[in-house]
């Protein structure tokens, strides 16, 4: 029965047939663009140019394009006149399950949650389907990279930074071990209609969970100490994978919503000398001093979201990034939504900008900051000489909904801006228009032969 179902589904859910981009062979020059560098403190470059060569930005400036040392630009370069257009780093969708699930409704396509409560050894990048139809759609919304989060249990597993183009998972993976995901228990009792458990029972449950956290992390630390002293001791896959997290060299992404959860989680992680990053952050403004003191960043899980409580200001979710940023807290913005909606990541940033987050910071919250949190800010997330040529060319202000991505590059490779959806559009454009009609609003593959006349 299960086998049959799986077979049927596999045949129903089409895999993306797009061809991954080949490596960059010629330099690319984008000129006369408005360049949003997303560099901290740097301003936007107007009438800007940049040159990408061998996957890396080699020159950046304003006015006439010139090489890195002021020489004329390479003659064999592809030159793009981007007058009236904007350039930004490729967007990075943080705390997403993109690639781990095709549709939530079909279990067979869902690899988000491993069995059990503690599974730090489960690593997200391994299960990302490179041919997922969701990836090309996200790319068309400007999302070129993603910090993919496993879910489930308490210690869900290892988050991975991926790029959204490649033949295999190996090619997708940028940082397989970007940090470990921990889900903090509720610190306040749930109201009665969420649960039949009394406040006392819930409190007991919470203590049990926190005790289990302590036990697990104590055991992991003991293991690391022992095995460092004596490498011949048997390997424990779970604890071994936590090494970098335990010593603070990789972050612990802690999912925590309320101020109580955040306070509890941060104090716990700091006391263990780990490097926490809060994911969620509804209640973060109430404990901003704690976050600032310990330089704990927050990944806001969605700006286009309802306020949590009835009495919250109607715009409390919209203003959350601005409220945190104004208190000196580093903020990344994620969608907090199903991964199929990752293409709307920039709209979350735009809403944050409408409600008080400076525009540059709104863009940084989906570029520089997530790159920093994944430990790759030296290469990704900003536009500067020496950085990866992972960027977008947009036909308008990046924060406007009406703006479209016209071109995209990952490490200098020119990405196809097509998807299952564009193919469907092209197909049905054929149905409604004569096959000779040339007008296309989106890049489309070579015209298909005319379909047979419609059945009616």
């Amino acid at each position, binding site marked *: 029965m299960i086998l049959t179902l799986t077979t049927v589904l596999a045949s129903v859910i089409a895999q993306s047939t797009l061809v991954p981009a080949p490596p960059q062979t010629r330099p690319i020059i984008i000129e006369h663009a408005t360049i949003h560098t997303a560099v901290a403190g740097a301003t936007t470059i107007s009438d800007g140019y940049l040159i990408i060569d061998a996957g890396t930005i080699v020159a950046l400036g304003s006015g006439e394009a010139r090489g890195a040392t002021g020489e004329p630009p390479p003659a064999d370069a592809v030159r793009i006149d981007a007058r009236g257009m904007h350039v930004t780093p490729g967007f990075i969708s943080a705390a997403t399950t993109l690639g781990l699930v095709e549709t939530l*409704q079909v279990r067979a396509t869902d690899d988000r949650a491993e069995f059990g409560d503690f599974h730090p050894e489960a690593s997200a990048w391994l299960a990302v389907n490179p041919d997922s139809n969701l990836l090309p759609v996200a790319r068309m919304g400007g999302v070129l990279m993603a910090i993919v989060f496993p879910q489930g249990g308490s210690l869900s597993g290892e988050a991975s930074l991926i790029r959204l183009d490649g033949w295999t998972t190996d090619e997708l993976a940028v940082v397989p071990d970007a940090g470990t995901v921990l889900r903090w228990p*509720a610190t306040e009792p749930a109201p009665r209609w969420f649960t039949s458990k009394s406040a006392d029972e819930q409190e007991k449950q919470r203590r049990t969970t926190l005790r289990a956290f302590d036990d697990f992390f104590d055991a992991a630390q003991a293991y690391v100490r022992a095995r460092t002293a004596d490498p011949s001791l048997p390997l424990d896959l779970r604890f071994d994978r936590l090494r970098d997290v335990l010593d603070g060299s990789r972050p612990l992404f802690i999912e925590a919503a309320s101020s109580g959860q955040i306070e509890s989680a941060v104090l716990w992680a700091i006391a263990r000398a780990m490097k926490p990053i809060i994911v969620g952050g509804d209640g973060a403004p109430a404990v901003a001093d704690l976050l600032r003191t310990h330089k704990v960043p927050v990944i806001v899980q969605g700006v286009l979201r309802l306020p949590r409580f009835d009495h919250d200001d109607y715009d409390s979710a919209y203003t959350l990034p601005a409220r945190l940023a104004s208190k000196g807290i580093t903020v990344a913005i994620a969608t907090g939504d199903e991964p199929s909606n990752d293409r709307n990541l920039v709209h979350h940033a735009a809403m944050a900008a409408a409600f008080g987050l400076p525009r540059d910071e709104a863009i940084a919250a989906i570029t520089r900051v997530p790159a920093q949190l994944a430990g790759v800010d030296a290469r990704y997330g900003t536009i500067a000489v020496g950085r990866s040529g992972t960027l977008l060319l947009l036909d308008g202000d990046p924060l406007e909904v009406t703006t479209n991505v016209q071109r995209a590059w990952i490490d200098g490779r020119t990405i196809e801006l097509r998807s299952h959806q564009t193919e469907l559009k092209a197909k*049905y454009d054929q149905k409604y228009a004569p096959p000779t009609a040339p007008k296309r609003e989106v890049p489309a593959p070579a015209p298909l032969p005319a379909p047979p006349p419609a059945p009616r």
Partner: protein
Amino acid sequence: MGGCFYTPSVRPRTLHAVLSLIALATSTATTGAQSPPVNGMLPSDVRWDAIQHATVVTSPGVEIEDATILMRDGWIEAVGPTGQIVIPTGATIHDGRGKRVMAGFIEPALLLNSAAHAHRASTEAGAHWNAYVTPQVSADDLASISSAVRGELRQLGFTVAATYPDAGIFRGRGSVQLLGDPPHGVQKLPGSAGQFVAFGRRARDFQRNDDDEDGARVVAYPNSIMGAVALLRQTLHDATWRADSIAVWNVHPVGNDPPRAAPALDALTAALTGRERVLFDASSPLDALRSGALAKEFGLNASILGSGKEFQHLSEIAALRLPIIVPLDYPTTANLSTARLAESASLRQLMSWAAAPSNLSRLIAAGASASLTTARLDQRSDFPSRVREALDAGLTESQLLASLTTTPAALLGMSETLGTIAVGRMANLTISEGPLFAKDSRITVVWIAGRAYDTATAGETPFESEFQVSGRFSIARADQHSCVMVIAPKKSTVEFVLTNADGSTKSVSAESVALEKLRGGFLVDGGALGLVGPIRCTMRIDLGALRIEALSPDGSTSQFVATAAPADEPKKVADATKGRPKITLTQPVGDFGLAAVPAQEHVLFRDATLWTSSPDGIRPHTDVLVKDGLIVQIGKALAAPVGGRVVECAGRHITPGLIDCHSHTGIDGDVNEWTQACTAEVRVNDVIDPDDVGWYRELAGGLTCANQLHGSANPIGGQNSVVKLKWGSPVAEWPVAGALPGIKFALGENVVRPKGRYPQTRMGVEAYMRDRFRAAREYAAAHRAYATLAAAARVGAQPSEAAPRVDLELQTLAEILDGTRIIHCHSYRQDEILMLIHLADEFGFRIGTFQHILEGYKVADAIARHGAGGSCFSDWWAYKMEVMDAIPWAGAMMQGQGVLMSFNSDSSELARHLNTESAKAVKYGNLSPARALEFVTINPARQLGIGNRTGSIEVGKDADLVLWSGDPLSPLSLCEQTWIEGTKRFDRADDLAARPGRELLRQQLIVAALQVGKPVDGAAPLKDEKPAIPPPTRLRERMLSTREDAYLDLWRRGLDLRTLSRAGVCGCEEVAR
């Protein structure tokens, strides 16, 4: 009140009738047929009782000092100043000095467990098809009120109670019962206390019917509030029709089948003719409003068992002019002791907490006829303290007394018998020492039909067994140290508390405590009392004092006299008699509530960029003049209105109010009545919740109008409701007049999800719809045929033919066939879309809109040919299999093929920024911004049949306007003001200005709550108040049984359940894993 009260007059005829039916003990009038032979002497006690020298409150506000009441055989013979009443020889005289005598209190709503009777009634021959329709159950048949409950009620002063069955929706008939103990006569008074109906079954009913005998799941209709209303309505129609049919059959029996047994419908006849009262169980203020609407629709003699939260809709409920029974079910505080814990307490919860005790006095002040009940209290013993809180909150003592006596007596139609102290009334009296329910007062005795029941103790035979003295007593001792003895007869304990010279105290419990009425004994450790060895004590009550004799181990005895010691028990922290602050209520009560309903304005919007959504397109630097709710002028340099307001709009944009063609915001209870494949009789209009904070949030995003749809669990769902978001105004003003009546249909995955019912495939969906349309056609034909009968045959003195039955389900479907109701059909795949088009073509009607319609672009030409509209998401996809082919160009592509298109939300979040949703028609469809905006303005207005009055900015149309800080298609623009029909419903500047005050009030109320009481029910922020996020369904219990872990995980993640009815799922009970 002068004159002689002693007039042993003839009792009114009605009373004779009552008397003759009640076997009040040995009244000679009643010995006979109903009484068994007497085994022994025939009793002949004359029950003459007189209470003298009491303060008698004959009716609320009317007192006689030093009065006498004379009772005989259970009835009041005389009442008046003591000197004027002649006491017959042989009467027992009771000293009433220091007592207040009031008419016996009446409990108007005591619910009795009727689960077994309801089950029997639902399975007997001729039972109604729906197990929750059992009006034939009668409280007369139920087990009597238990002696414990009778005792509890008497302690509170109640002498009589109207009892009702408590199971199901049509629960059955009530009866009025005396609260005395057997064997003194029959406890039930004649007549009916009315039918009792409810807006939903309880969890217990549900579980009983949830599984059949084989354990298979039986889906029991209704699961939603709107389904319950539909069932109420249909059943009342059926009962009317049956009565009419029987009347016809009685005249024309020949050739006609006799009516079959239908005890349930027959039981409702008296209610439908107004002869019997109908009591609605209104567990929320909105239920109360629904009760009023149904009572009006069917001409019922209705009354309401309220929720205690009527203050939330005070004027609307008072305007119903229906008697209301008010419980004292106040929310109690939970653990708000830390800032973290108090994070979730909403202003609505806190204000409701504060205002609850004022509910009764507010109702009375608003002109309502309100009675008190002990129903809905967790513990009946809380009643006095709750009453005290109500008194503190403004209730007067005479209002209180009326709500316990005259008002419920009138409600029950028994004012001639109960509720006042007067000659000829039943001798039901409640006697109190001190002011009624005051802290140190107590109700000492109640008289029920002329028999006294001591209420100082709750025991069944109060005078017999308990030690008569309780409390704290000082014992004089030589060593001057204070010694207090504490006697608790109920617990059978005796304790000594010693205070030493240094003020420290020590307590010692006595052992082997044996107490009887007037004497007792115990053993106490003498060492602990500064004596030697075990001391054996006896005590007795004699000569007005408590005397103790102690026997020491050496055989010596010593005597003490105990004197009452002053109480110095610490005041309980949880005593809630003080501290709930007095607050001014807002509309709605709580978060973002308004001080008053906002008024329509005469207003000029000057120099705006006008997005007209009309052929005029976008007009820069233009003025709009609004008067009486309408747009009266559009142009340049318009004159400012005299006495009106001018809104300067330079640099700003104005659009029509946005319209959401697919919303589930503010639907009270389940969004789906998912228990049947066809629920066309169900109406969302019955369950609009105007208090849902979601409305305010949507106003803040420029939304002014929403198409509230039933969910998509059924091929044929319920009727829609098109409303304007008139936040702060009564819900009756929300529906948009002139909107085309509509109904939700659904295709595809959702409708085949419920297991064990037809249909399970898209094939079955087609067949099912075809079959129902066929039935509707026949139904309409039958009604047409009847309508064309000769008038004489139809409505003459002797109609020869019964009218066809009114079937609200088929009637609704027939409206679709005749074009007066449009379908809004949840649909995804192209095959199912074509299927419905074919079906509609075949039956000759036009589909209103296809909703979601994510594959509609594949058959846009067919949709355009048929003439249906389309209402889709801008870009959602991949949330389930049937939407894997959704594309964001669909809206524009379909529009290009001639389909009238709109973008909708299906989400209380997305509905907050439909403007930027429409911008996606520019992004993907390359439409002009003006045309794109029409996807959320004039296009949905046309789809809903209100394009002639809203959706665009044109002279003569409703002044539904949104003022934006910039380009409305930009996410960087803010909605600054939202106007509906010339009334400003949202102003961001006002909202910002009000924030500090709102938060201050919230914090003050939290502090007040902390001072009043310790946490009672920590699991809820505030007990029993509408939670911060409304429960997803009334079937919370059921949902929790399968999804508790998922729910708790949502709470942990700080997620709002309302956002989790995912796109296109239409509130189907699905929660992210």
